[in-house]
């Protein structure tokens, strides 16, 4: 497990969040993530995240679906189980196009959902630490990752000065883990201040 220390600042306004993100990055702190109640346009740019490759994955899944459909139908109808449908040729592409289209959409949709879940570290029975429950309601939560050299007090003051309404320090698992919530609830309570960086 990768347990680290985080400084968590909660903002109640988008307009304050954006300059704060800029200031924090400029000051050289490492932002772990920003949790928002809704998709905020331009935040990925402000955070300096690279463009997602989800669409490339989607294109590849789509091509896979198309190839699957075409090769499977053509194998069935021209090799494995030849039948005469209304006197049409065995290899009758126009009739297959709807199925090829559907499988393209199906593969790319399902594939992209799974990839998206993987990229966001979401899956059934998998747990992630929630830094602030109100991030799903009305707070924008910025999480700064600390290293062994980070001055925590200074970071907290910096966030407060940047407009955070609420600042606290949390020691938490950075990634995801398997487990059941009722058993894992107190996983990080009463941890001593041993931080691996």
């Amino acid at each position, binding site marked *: 497990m990768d347990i680290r220390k985080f400084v968590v600042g909660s903002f109640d306004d988008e307009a304050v969040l954006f300059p704060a993100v800029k200031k924090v990055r400029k000051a050289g702190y490492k932002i772990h993530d920003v949790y928002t109640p809704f998709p905020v*346009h331009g935040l990925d740019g402000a955070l300096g995240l690279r*463009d997602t490759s989800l*669409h490339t994955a989607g294109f590849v899944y789509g091509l896979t679906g198309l190839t699957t459909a075409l090769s499977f139908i053509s194998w069935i109808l021209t090799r494995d189980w030849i039948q005469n449908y*209304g006197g049409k040729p065995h290899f009758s592409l*126009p009739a297959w196009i709807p199925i090829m289209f559907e499988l393209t959409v199906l593969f790319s949709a399902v594939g992209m959902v799974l990839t998206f879940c993987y990229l966001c570290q979401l899956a059934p029975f998998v747990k992630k630490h929630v830094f602030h429950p109100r991030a799903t309601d009305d707070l924008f939560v910025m999480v700064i990752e600390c290293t062994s050299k980070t001055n925590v007090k200074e970071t907290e003051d910096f966030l407060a000065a940047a407009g955070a309404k609420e600042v606290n320090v949390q020691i938490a698992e950075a990634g995801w883990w398997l487990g059941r919530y009722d058993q894992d609830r107190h996983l990080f309570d009463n941890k001593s201040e041993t931080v691996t960086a």
Partner: protein
Amino acid sequence: MIKQQFEIPAGYKKWTYGLLAVGIVAFIAGFIFLGMSKNEHDQTRFWAVLLQNSVYFLLVCNAAMFFICAITLAHGGWSVAFRRVPEAISAVVPVFAILAFLVFLGLILGHRHDIYHWVDKEAVAHDKILTWKKGFLNPTFFFIWTIITLCVWTFTGMKMRKLSRKADEGPMSAEDAKRYTWNNTVWAAIFVVFFALTVGSTIPWLWLMSLDAHWYSTMYSWYTFASTFVAGIALIALFIIFLKNHGYLEYTTREQLHDVGKFIFAFSIFWTYLWFSQFMLIWYANIPEETIYFKIRFQGPYRGFFFLNFIINFCAPILILMTKGSKRNYAVMTFMSVAVILGHWLDFYQMVMPSTVGENHNLGWFEWGILALYIGMIMFFTGRALTKAPLVAKYHPYLKESIIHHT
């Protein structure tokens, strides 16, 4: 200070007059050598080309107004920064409406049954199918509905442009802005409803589908609409890029161009969906009355056009415009817009020609000349319309939304 007032650059003028000159020479030569020719095939070719171009470009320019109205109805703000561009394109509609009307007058009063088979009363009387369709396919109804259509398009388009000019006058209070938005919504709704009754259904039946008087397809109007709408958006994109390259439209950024690119991408796929649905149902059912339409296009002399059409209008847009970068790239967007406009012009070519000139098709000097004439006219009238109004509707309630637009 932003550059509000468009001045036509010298290069643009040169191209406009060049194309117009070529087009007018082609038209006159066509009139003498084809229109007045003793050879019936030449006459048919003359009228078919005029019909193809006048209908295609009229619908393309009218699609620009549909673009504005559809976005207005959806309360979309993103396009306000370049709204004057589709407005200027739609200002061509009255001119093209008159030209198309003249072509129809020539076709029907000239009794051109080689184009519209149903104007031949003798043939209709002995034809069971055409007798059934007589209530719809007759010169009187054709003219009445065409005149109403052209007038309503022209009038509602003018009304929308006039309303847009009100946003130049001065700052609006919140109440004024609400009333302004509501007015826009009402007129846009009138236009869109009428658009559905015309381009979405009856007009392509009358003007184009009746070229094959015995045949019909329920997909036809939507197919025509999709074809002209995507070409109309490509035309808007071309003008946006042109103006951006000359330092105008400061508020229009790559974000807007990206969205216009998405429109071209999406409606290319929509067009393909209709193109294919129309084809596949007829191919599958294999009923002679219906397959006759595709016989000449799919297996006859137009086979090349049939597949070229598919490659330019589907394969190219879907592969080239798929990535974000290409929709934000001026060069790629220019290339694709030109391809789409020409591609759908070819689409109209293979809608009109097989039913009229049939096997004697000839994509020669006259066809390209009339294309040049129409492009020249679009450039001339759109350029003139652009100079008449400021390029940005300064006090439009949604202007800020458009400036901060982010895809």
